[in-house]
C-alpha cells in the first residue's frame, strides 16, 4: 500500500500548478477589465466636468459682458406701454444706432444692443427711479433676425437655466410680434425670478396682445396688491382707458 499522504501532498501541488495558468489568465483578464472600466469612468467624469465648466464659463462670460456694457454705456431699459412701444419702434432703432455710435468702448465689430421694447419714448431714457421696487435685467445679446440664433439662445437656456436668456427671448419674441412665445418666455423668466417686473410686464402685455384683456387686468391687479410699481400701475391705467 502506498504512503498516501505524500501522494496527496504531491497531488495538491500538481493541482496548484495545473490551475496556475488559469489564475494568471483570470487575474490578467480582471486587471484589464478594471483598467478599462477605470479609464472609461475617468473619461466620462472628465467629460462631464469639462461640459459643466464650459457651461458655467459661458454663462459667466455672458453675464460679465452684460454688466460691463451696462455700466459702460449707462444705458437702461425703460418700461413702457404697449401702444407706445409699437409706435416708437422705428424711433427706438434710430436711438439705438445713435447710442451705439457714441459708444467709445465698443471694441468689436459685433453690434451689442439693448432691446428697448419697453421704452416709452426716446426722451424717456433716464435712470431708473430708485424708489420703485422692481428689478430689471439688462441684456447684451447680439440682435439678430436669424431664427437659428434664437434657437441657440433657447438651447443655451435649457442647458444653463439663465434668466438673462429667458428674458432676452421674451423681449425678442414680443418685438417680433410672436406673442405666444413672448408670453411663454416671460413666464419662464418669472419662474426663475418672480420679482423680475420686466418679464412680468411682458407677460401681461403679451396676454393683452393675444386678446386676453380681462386676464391681463386681473393679473395686474393682483400684482399691484403686493408690489407698489409705477410701471404696472401705468399699464393698468392704460388698459382701463
Amino acid at each position, binding site marked *: 500500500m*502506498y504512503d*498516501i499522504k505524500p501522494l*496527496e501532498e*504531491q*497531488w495538491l501541488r*500538481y493541482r496548484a500548478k495545473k490551475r496556475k495558468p488559469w489564475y494568471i489568465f483570470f487575474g490578467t483578464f480582471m486587471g484589464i477589465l478594471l483598467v478599462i472600466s477605470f479609464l472609461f469612468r475617468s473619461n466620462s467624469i472628465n467629460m462631464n466636468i469639462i461640459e459643466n465648466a464650459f457651461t458655467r464659463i459661458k454663462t459667466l462670460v455672458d453675464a460679465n459682458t452684460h454688466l460691463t456694457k451696462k455700466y459702460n454705456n449707462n444705458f437702461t431699459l425703460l418700461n413702457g406701454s404697449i401702444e407706445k412701444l409699437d409706435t416708437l419702434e422705428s424711433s427706438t432703432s434710430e436711438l439705438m444706432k445713435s447710442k451705439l455710435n457714441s459708444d467709445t468702448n465698443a471694441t468689436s465689430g459685433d453690434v451689442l444692443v439693448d432691446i428697448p421694447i419697453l421704452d416709452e419714448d426716446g426722451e424717456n431714457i433716464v435712470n431708473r427711479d430708485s424708489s420703485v421696487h422692481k428689478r430689471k435685467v439688462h441684456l447684451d445679446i447680439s440682435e439678430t433676425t436669424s431664427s437659428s440664433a434664437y434657437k441657440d439662445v433657447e438651447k443655451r437656456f435649457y442647458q444653463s437655466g439663465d434668466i438673462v436668456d429667458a428674458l432676452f427671448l421674451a423681449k425678442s419674441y414680443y418685438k417680433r410680434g410672436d406673442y405666444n412665445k413672448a408670453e411663454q418666455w416671460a413666464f419662464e423668466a418669472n419662474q426663475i425670478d418672480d420679482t423680475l417686473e420686466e418679464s412680468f410686464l411682458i407677460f401681461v402685455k403679451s396676454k393683452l396682445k393675444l386678446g386676453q384683456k380681462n386676464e391681463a387686468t386681473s393679473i395686474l391687479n393682483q400684482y399691484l396688491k403686493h408690489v407698489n410699481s409705477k410701471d404696472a400701475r401705468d399699464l393698468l391705467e392704460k388698459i382701463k382707458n
Partner: protein
Amino acid sequence: MKSRYSVAKNVFIDSIDIDDYIELESSVDAYQKLQQGMDKPLKMILLFGMPGTGKSILLNRTQETLKHQKEIYYFDTPAPTEKEFFQKLFKIITEKKLPQNTEVNFSALIDFCKKLRDKREIIILLDEAQMYSTGIMEKIRLLSDTRSIKFVISLHKTEDEDLIAKDHFKSRIWEVIELKNVTNEEQSIYVHKKLLKKNLFEIANSINAKNMKLIYKFTHGNYRECNKLMFTIFEICEYYDKNEPSVIQYSSIPQKIIEMAALKLGYINV
C-alpha cells in the same frame, strides 16, 4: 472486510493469460490478418508495434486457438543462449530430445527441415524477437528458407528493430501486421469488459466517460499503461475505502484519484 477495489485492481495485473484476452475490433482484425497470413505459403510474418499494444497476448491466443489444428509453438521469451534456443527448436522439429552435452548441428538441422517440406508445416511464434542475436536471426532466416518452418516474428517498433526487419527479413517477409494503441472508445470498452468479465458491474459503471477520457489522456490507448494505471487507481481507491471512505464516490472515480495514480506512475509531474 475485503474492499471491492481489491478484486478490481487484480483484474488489471498485466499478463498474457488467454483468459485475460479482451476481444476488441482492432484485436480481432489483427488476429484475422495473422491467421490468414499463416494459411498463405509465407516464410515469415512480421508482427510489430509499440510495447503494450497486445502483441504477446495475440501470439498466445493464436497458439491457444490453433494448437489443435496446426503444429504451432510459442516462444514467449528468448532463450538465454543460442545453444538453448536451438536445442528447443531441435526438439520441436525432430520431436526428439537432444542428448545432454551435445550441440545442434545446424547444417544437419537444415537438411532435416528440407526433408520435412510438404510433409509438415511447423509454425514458430517468436515473441520479443528483438532480443535474439544477429546470429540466431540469420539462422532463423535460413530455416525459414527450407519452407517447412514458418516464423511469426514479433518485434517492438523502434528504429533499431525496423533495421532488423529490413536487413534480415526484407526479402522473406510477406506479411506485416502492425498493432497500434487503441482509441479512447476501444480503451473504454477494454476497461469495462475486463471488469465485467469478473462480475464487477458496479465498479465498471462507476468509471464514466470523463474518467475514461482522463485515463486515455495519460495512457494514450496503450494496454500495458492502461493496466498499470487502472491497477494503481484501484489500489488508491482501496486505501480510501478502508481508511477514509468519505473520499470515495461509489458512483464515479474521483478525478483526484486518477491524477494521484498518474503522479505515482510518473505520467504527470509536479
